[in-house]
Structures are given as structure tokens and as C-alpha cells.
């Protein structure tokens, strides 16, 4: 069931006195509620885990990288306005070009899209990672030298 199908459904309801409709098809469930005062409420419950589903990662064996991701999660919730820069590859995270050099960026640094902000070493290659947003670094989420997995948040940025 795609968005165009939902759109069609919404159209069907116009001019009827239907207050609520629920459609389940091909694993997608759509419920539409209508009211006079409030705008239409659309709840698509496809990917969401049902209440009874086993806890996703938390119950598993200790997972190096995922554990850190979990720590980060509540903070992200507090500051939904921040943007996170995530790792595009698996490897080792370095904050500076050489061990002696100062870090590319630190908390408070202003960064611009495309600016190199860290290095991730993978297969003996040093990959320069660029900021994908303009803004100010609010937090560095990974320790220097630490392993990171695909999609792991590296920096929190307060966007401009």
C-alpha cells in the first residue's frame, strides 16, 4: 500500500459522514479518523514494533558500538533540533590527521558543509569524513581511536 493509495482513500471519504476508517493491506495498516474541529489524523502503523515484540538490541549480547548508540539516544530526544553526523563506513575514528596534530574540530567549532571533521581508517586507508551540514559542533560522540560501525552517530551539530 503506497501513499497514492492512502491519498485515494482520503478522497473517497470527502462528503461522507464516516468518522473513522481502518484498512489493512499487504502488511500496511492505515487508520483515518475525521472530525470537525480537528484536522484528519493519519496513523500508519507499518514498521513500528508492536508492544509485545522482543526488545530489539537491549536484550542481546553486549555490542560494542551499539551500546554507545544507546547511550546517545536519550540525548537526541532531548535535543531534537540538533543534527547528527553519522559514519558512512565501518572503521576506526580519529579526530586529527596525525597523533600530534590538533583535532579537526572541537565542541563549539563552527563547521561548514564539506569541511573535513574527522578521519575513519578502514582497510589501512585514511578516509576523510566531511560535515554534511552547516552549524556548530555541540558534542563529539565517539572517543579518538574508537571503532565505529555504519550509521553510528559521530557528532551532534546545532544547524544554522
Amino acid at each position, binding site marked *: 500500500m503506497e501513499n497514492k493509495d492512502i491519498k485515494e482513500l482520503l478522497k473517497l471519504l470527502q462528503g461522507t459522514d464516516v468518522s473513522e476508517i481502518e484498512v489493512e493491506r*499487504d*502488511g500496511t495498516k492505515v487508520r483515518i479518523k475525521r472530525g470537525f474541529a480537528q484536522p484528519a489524523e493519519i496513523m500508519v502503523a507499518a*514498521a513500528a514494533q*508492536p508492544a509485545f515484540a522482543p526488545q530489539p*538490541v537491549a536484550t542481546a549480547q*553486549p*555490542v560494542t558500538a551499539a551500546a554507545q548508540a544507546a547511550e546517545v539516544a536519550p540525548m537526541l530526544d532531548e535535543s531534537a533540533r540538533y543534527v547528527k553526523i553519522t559514519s558512512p563506513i*565501518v572503521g*576506526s575514528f580519529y579526530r586529527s590527521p596525525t597523533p600530534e596534530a590538533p583535532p579537526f574540530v572541537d565542541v563549539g567549532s563552527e563547521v561548514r558543509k564539506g569541511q573535513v571533521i574527522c578521519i575513519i581508517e578502514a582497510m589501512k586507508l585514511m578516509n576523510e569524513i566531511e560535515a554534511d551540514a552547516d552549524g556548530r559542533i555541540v558534542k563529539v560522540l565517539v572517543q579518538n581511536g574508537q*571503532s565505529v560501525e555504519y550509521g553510528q552517530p559521530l557528532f551532534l551539530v546545532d544547524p544554522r
Partner: protein
Amino acid sequence: MNLFGKVLIANRGEIAVRIIRACRELGIKTVAVHSTADSNALHVRLADESVCIGPPQSTQSYLNIPAIISAVEITDSEAIHPGYGFLAENPQFAEACRTSGIAFIGPTAESIRMAGDKSKAREVMKKAGVPVVPGSDGPVSDEASVVEVVEKIGYPVIIKASAGGGGKGMRVVEKKSELMQAYHMAQREALAAFGNGDVYVEKFITSMRHIEVQVMADNKGKCIYLGERDCSVQRRHQKLVEEAPSPVVNDALRKKLGTLAVKAARAFRYTNVGTVEFIYDDDQNVYFMEMNTRVQVEHPVTEYVTGIDIIKEQILLAAGNPLRIKQTDVKITGHSIECRINAEDPVKFVPSPGLITSIILPGGPGVRVDTAAYCGWNVPPHYDSMIAKLIVHGRDRDEAIMRMRRALEEFIVEGIRTTIPFHKRVMESDLFRSGQFNTKFIERLNESA
């Protein structure tokens, strides 16, 4: 005994879980890799560590060699188990492991390459004295040679890409008027698909059983066979049901097939577990089909009738240990059958991914389930649709069939559609129960319905 301290599993689903089980029993730590679509997958939950290696698309995750090698490096793993599919038969991957000093749990890149080039493999087999289907000697490079070969072997013939696989660059030709067009089409397809336009010609065998032999070889020159599997129940070259032993193989034929399989493995300088696939035609001819240079989906039926844990032996072999099983130790006891349970419509075979709202696995005597599915798991649409393997063992084929029927009956999956009803039909059919069928089984099953 040499043992790895930590093994990274470059796969997902039931085979990743299967490998974790073998590692645990050997006291080896495991690392799971996964795409973002598999964060809640069972192999991730069961492994000692896990690394997310990319987005849902396989090309950027499970087929992403640099990401996997990096995951080995950041977790300090010593070896990679590739499972089946994905990178398991990719010689570049085996080579990348070697270059990076990582043990690859499989044969050498050279063996993979040799067995993977079908036209080359034919030549190797002929030289080794393993019968191949009548056809051309190597690639056919011009129209005249094609005609010459076909006149010798007779119609129907099949034209195949030398570098081929997966049905691409393949053309069946029934009569002379179609030959030239098919030849040129196959060449063009082969070039497009594999960057290599070489094709070769073989007699097309319309009525056959698919019988394969499990082999095990160490790097000290020792090689044994663990008997055969019959995989004749197929749909579009996709195996659906496998069994061991084959209902048409007697002791003499078993020994013949086993000896040929060992000969084939030796010719490929093979050094791990692998499978030699044979065509067994209506006239009881045996022909080499291909060698699978990896563990196979259907390995459990052999495990059940021999009592040998193939994955554990595979890991021990890759760690450099000599084979600890002698040919005379291998005894076939009883009968085993495997049904591949796919998340598909059981009639139209259309994939049916989604949330599993309830799952009750069969159990009791003689029943084994290999699965990564659980209640509350969302079957992702990005990968293979096989969600479980149901394997049974009985004292004889009749008991195994009755056991499979009752196991299918008690196997409950809700939320998605599965091929369980299809397998019930197979097990109830007189054709399957008779044991007398060939690779056209499914067509005949549907005719009789």
C-alpha cells in the same frame, strides 16, 4: 588442535545462526555483521559482538568487501565465515582475506575460480576422468564449430556462458533452425552479464535427477565423501526439498559417485567442505554438473544421516587441522528430508515479507529447525525469502515422510504467508512417496492436482 579465537560471519539469516552455533560449540567468539535492516535480526542477538556494515541493499552491506574487512579489523577477528550466497563463491573476496591476513573459511581463491569458470571446470573434469555431459571442448568460437559439435551430440542442446551462472547467457535449442540465433544471443548475453562472451555447448538433458555429493578435504591431501543428497524437487532451478540418501542410489552407485566426487575435488585442489553436483539421467548415466565451493543450504540432511557436524569440521579444516574423520567412519543411518520454508505465497511463490505475529516451531523426536525467525520479527523485503529449514530424520524414508508431515502440520506462522502448505502437498503426493521422480516433479505435481 588449532582453533580461531574469534570468527566474523559475513552473512545473515539462518546460516549466520548456524555458524554461531558451531563456533559456540568449539568455544570460539563470534562477530555478526548486519545491514540497518537487520538490526533486530537473531544472528545479531546471538553473536558475541555485532557491527552494522551498511544500508539494507546487499551491494552496500553484505556484498561490501571493504566494510566487511574493516569489521574484521575493528573487532580483531581472525577468520571470516562467508556462509552461502553473498560473497561465499567470490574469489576476489577470498583473495582480499588472504591479502589482509584473515583466514577464509572455505577453499582457496584458486579453487573457487577454477570451479567457477564452467567451461574451464569441464576441461579439468575431463582430464581427471570425471564424466561430463557430451559437448564442446572449451568455448566455441565460430559458427562452424557450433554446428560440428551439435551434429556430433544431437538435439536438444544447451548453450551456456563460460563465466556463467544464474541462468544468464543460457539458451536451450530444440532444432537446427534455431541454433545460430541462439548462439549469437547467448554470446551477447554472456558479454553483457559477465564481461566475457565465451560460450560452450552441451547436450541438454531433459529428464534427470539432481544428485550431489558432500566432500571434505584437508590441506594435507586427504579427502573423503559423506554420501549423496537428492535435490530433484526443484522449481525454476531452485531447490525446495532435499533428502539423503537418494531413493535411487544403492551402495554400489553411492561408492561410484563418492569416488568421482573425491576425484573432482582433488582435481580442483580442494581444501575445505564442498559439494560436487551430478546429473543422473534416465539411462543411469552420471555426469559432472558443477562444484559448489562452499557449504550448502541442504547440508543438514547429511549431518542427520552421518552424525557429523559439517560446519564444525569446516572451521577446524580452515584452521589448518587435518581431517579427523576417516572414510570408513562415515556411516549412513536412516533417512533425512529437508523442506525449505520460504516467506512466499504457497501457490504463486510471490514473496510475503512482513511482521511475524506468531510462530510455533515443530519439535519432538527426529525434528530439527534451522531458522533466524522469531515472534515479533519483521521479515525484511531486501533478501532471500527463505525463513526456515525444517529437517527431519527417521529410521527409513517412510518414517521420515510421516514425520515431515506431522512437523509441517504443527508448524504455525502467522502474519506472513509461507510455503508450508506447498510442502504438505509434496509430502502427501504419491509421486514423492514413491521416490520415483525427476526434476520435473513440480510440473507433474501440479498436473495431478
